[in-house]
């Protein structure tokens, strides 16, 4: 199927499936991080920081620090899994293993290869989220059934951050240079997206700036869903994430084509 200048069919699933098979080989290692990481964070923040902070006020709601931070951890996991899959790992497949070159001698188009990679990044984000969600749920930190909506949200967030990562993969000269977009985009988002302290703690100009971060919207949507509170911010967040996908996804296809097809 051709959509404008793009050549994508359901064949991208083959690429996705290849990555799934590799992932399954070491599934235990892959499962371990999202399983143990939240425990580490909850121990540090729940036992350590909570004593200092006590509770947090977010838009009129009084939340314990652990309840406040749990959705942030989920959203960060979504971002990290997709972003790192489609930067470092995709770059290794593209540049060092020449996996894409081999695929491009078969009936797969480059657009399908890249789509498969981004969908795989989103899938990793989803798997990690499901594991982490079950861990934090054991501590009663998520309200159900609303909390279940975090799962599809993690896929949407995964596409947005995976596509963003793939854009960098398409333009970066060497693998070491991923440090730059991580320092410029990922680290500020990690710290200032209403993750570890409420946005209200920032000066007004910084709050406005933080609204540009996709992570801000992902954190907010995750938070309200975990709390079981339906707010209009959830819809705004979803709309913003969809918009990010609509920008970064085609852009990723364009820059990868420019990089690989000569």
């Amino acid at each position: 199927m051709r959509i404008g200048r793009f050549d994508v069919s359901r064949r991208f699933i083959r690429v996705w499936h290849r990555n799934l098979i590799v992932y399954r080989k070491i599934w235990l290692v892959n499962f371990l991080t999202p399983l143990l990481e939240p425990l580490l964070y909850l121990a540090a923040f729940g036992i350590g920081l909570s004593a200092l902070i006590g509770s947090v006020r977010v838009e009129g709601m009084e939340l314990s620090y652990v309840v406040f931070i749990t959705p942030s951890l989920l959203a960060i996991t979504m971002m990290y899994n997709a972003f790192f899959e489609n930067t470092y790992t995709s770059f290794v497949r593209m540049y060092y293993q020449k996996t894409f070159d081999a695929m491009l001698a078969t009936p797969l188009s480059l657009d399908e290869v890249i789509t498969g990679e981004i969908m795989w990044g989103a899938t990793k984000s989803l798997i990690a989220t499901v594991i982490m969600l079950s861990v934090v749920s054991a501590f009663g930190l998520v309200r159900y059934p609303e909390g279940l909506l975090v799962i599809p949200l993690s896929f949407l967030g995964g596409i947005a951050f995976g596509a963003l990562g793939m854009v960098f993969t398409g333009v970066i000269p060497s693998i070491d240079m991923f440090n730059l977009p991580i320092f410029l985009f990922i680290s500020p988002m990690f710290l200032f997206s209403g993750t570890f302290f409420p946005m209200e703690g920032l000066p007004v100009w910084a709050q406005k700036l933080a609204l540009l971060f996709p992570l801000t919207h992902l954190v907010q949507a995750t938070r309200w869903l975990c709390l079981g509170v339906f707010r209009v911010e959830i819809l705004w967040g979803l709309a913003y994430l969809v918009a990010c996908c609509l920008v970064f996804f085609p852009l990723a296809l364009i820059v990868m084509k420019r990089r690989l097809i000569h």
Partner: protein
Amino acid sequence: MTSAHARVIEARNITKRFGDFLAVDTISFDLLPGECLGLLGPNGAGKTSTIRMVYGFSPLTAGTLKIFGVDVSSGWRAVRFGIGVCQQDNNLDPDLTVLQNLEIFAGYFDIPRGAAREKADQLLRFMALDHRRNDMVSSLSGGMMRRMVLARALINDPQLLILDEPTTGLDPQSRHQVWEKLEKLRAQGLSILLTTHNMDEASRLCDRLIIMDHGKILVTGSPLELVREYAGNQVLEILEPADELRAFVRARELMHDNLDHRLIIYGGENDRLFESIGREYCGENCIRRMATLEDVFLRLTGRELRE
């Protein structure tokens, strides 16, 4: 898209330009069913650029290119179903085992699982890799990896096999084993397009050769025809030749190359001539030998380094 087509490849004035660099300059050639066609040329001659256009990886700058009668620019997907490609790098999937490499690759061609396993088994036996089926590909030797790349290129039962320098970097044993496999495939009627700068490979495998340089076709013909025409039957190589011999060769207008410390005289149709040169000008510094494709190659593409 059957072998009923008169031509497997039909390239007409195809051109590939990278910015200011003209990698392939308006070349035309055909590949007939069952034929093994070799593209020969020094580094940067345009061989790889040509075959990348053939399998629909690189878009053409100009010209038309039909594979199995299908225009590759618009019908690249249909074309790729019918071809197998061995790229220059051993780009096997290092995250997977030998068997998985074949099975997953089969999936890219829509081959159902059962059929893929059957085909993979058959190819592993053919390539003598059966005993390594569950090993990771990174544990294979260089020769095994090459055979494995070849097996992968055959997973879709291609009608056209494209090989980009299939034996570069292999030891003689492995090289001969790959040649043996390729000869078997050729005997089965598979059409093959290969690039190489190994002259033994070209003479042994190819029905017809195209010698390229600077993006252009210099000559084309069977290995034997090319040797006869451009180097003759025999060659006389003289180390540190006397000035009189150089003058003699020039005066008689013999086909020759005049190098710093060496004079090479081609053509030995006239045995007497070589014998008389031998008597008059040579001591132990003369070697008389059969002309080879390498002589043709060096005569046509020159002796300067390509770096």
